């Protein structure tokens, strides 16, 4: 009859979870108890047999089939209900008519002003903080540091197909304004953050703005549902200081 204590130590030893002290104690015990040693060997063989059993190969097409069926089902569901979480586009579609018209006019004015500003101020090292350089169009999965007065962090952008994802990490309690300036074909999907509360979001014709407050990580999703592939200018500012500017273009245009 093996003492319960040693049954436990035998199992811990088999799992590689035993301390050196206990291993030495177990060794001494097994040397003086042949029945326990026999049991240990049998258990060890059982464990080795289990560990040595080869994995079963699933069908080669299983992953692909799963992916296709999930997204097929999801797109059907999405077709029935446009709202997909976060902030719904519908929120902005069903405002009273006069507010909508006023918004369009204001948006066009701001868009024209922004475009004028962008055209007059090409992106260059002179008006940027941190490591962002050049006016060349940048493409997918680019990560860069943000380093402005009292604000540090990082930003990465990715554009592939309809999806435009911007990930931001901010290490400052200051308010950050994130602007996406685009043609008229980009839609705001949602913003995700672990911070409580919702960032302030404004959607204009040709421009989407998010005011983010406080340290944290944010993932912002935009959608180019019409497939226009028009470039999007991302601008991040704080108190009027430009922290980051980048033109996000389609992957294939890299």
């Amino acid at each position: 009859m093996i003492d319960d204590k040693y049954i436990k130590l035998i199992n811990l030893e088999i799992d590689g979870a035993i301390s050196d002290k206990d291993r030495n104690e177990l060794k001494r015990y097994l040397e003086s108890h042949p029945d326990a040693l026999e049991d240990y060997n049998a258990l060890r063989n059982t464990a080795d047999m289990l560990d040595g059993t080869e994995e079963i190969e699933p069908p080669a097409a299983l992953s692909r089939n799963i992916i296709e069926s999930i997204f097929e089902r999801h797109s059907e569901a999405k077709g029935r209900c446009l709202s997909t979480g976060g902030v719904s586009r519908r929120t902005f579609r069903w405002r009273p008519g006069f507010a909508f018209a006023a918004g369009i006019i204001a948006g066009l004015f701001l868009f024209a002003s922004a475009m004028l500003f962008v055209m007059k101020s090409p992106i260059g090292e002179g008006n940027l903080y941190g490591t962002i350089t050049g006016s060349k169009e940048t493409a997918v999965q680019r990560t860069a540091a943000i380093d402005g007065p009292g604000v540090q962090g990082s930003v990465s952008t990715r554009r592939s197909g309809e999806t435009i994802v911007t990930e931001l990490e901010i290490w400052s309690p200051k308010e950050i304004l994130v602007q996406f300036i685009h043609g008229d074909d980009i839609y705001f999907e949602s913003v995700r953050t672990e911070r409580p509360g919702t960032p302030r979001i404004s959607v204009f014709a040709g421009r989407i703005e998010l005011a983010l407050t406080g340290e944290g990580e944010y993932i912002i999703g935009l959608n180019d549902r019409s497939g226009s592939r028009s470039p999007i200018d991302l601008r991040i500012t704080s108190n009027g200081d430009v922290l980051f500017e980048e033109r996000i273009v389609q992957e294939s245009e890299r």
Partner: protein
Amino acid sequence: MAEDEKIIMRIEFDRGAFEAIVEEYTKPVFNIAYRMVNDYEDAMDITQTTFMKAYEKRGSYDSRYKVFSWLYRIAVNESLNHIQKRKRESNLTYDPADRRLTPEQIMIQNETAGRVQNAIMDLGLDHRMVVVLKHFQHLSYAEIGTILDIPEKKVKSRLFSARHLLKEKLSAKGFKQ
């Protein structure tokens, strides 16, 4: 924010992020299901349902979990649901160990692996789960405890007694230890 939480958040906007998860975890999830139900076709169904549920429940992902432990938890639960459903459907005592192997299964299982699998199917579900997660997915006691939502101490006691039972069963089946 933990890296795994970021991955789940990315799924919201990025189909590629979810595709990468499916590609990476199809095989382990399939193997968990297969070891639990001992049927190739059923394991395929459980794998599909696992990822379907993961995608649908991504909004309620609990950041205490790693992506793999979140998926394995769903896979184990789906396997248990499947076994229960089979029991109800057959209206008889369902014993997956009695199910016939397909020619494909026979090909992929050598004699030893087949006997080991049959011995595993003789175990109760509580014992089977810990053996599958420990010996086929090589997880730690703590990871198994997280997936099964039981204390580490209970993981050890179940695993230790499961291994003793397996040793006895394999001996009884004439398998030389």
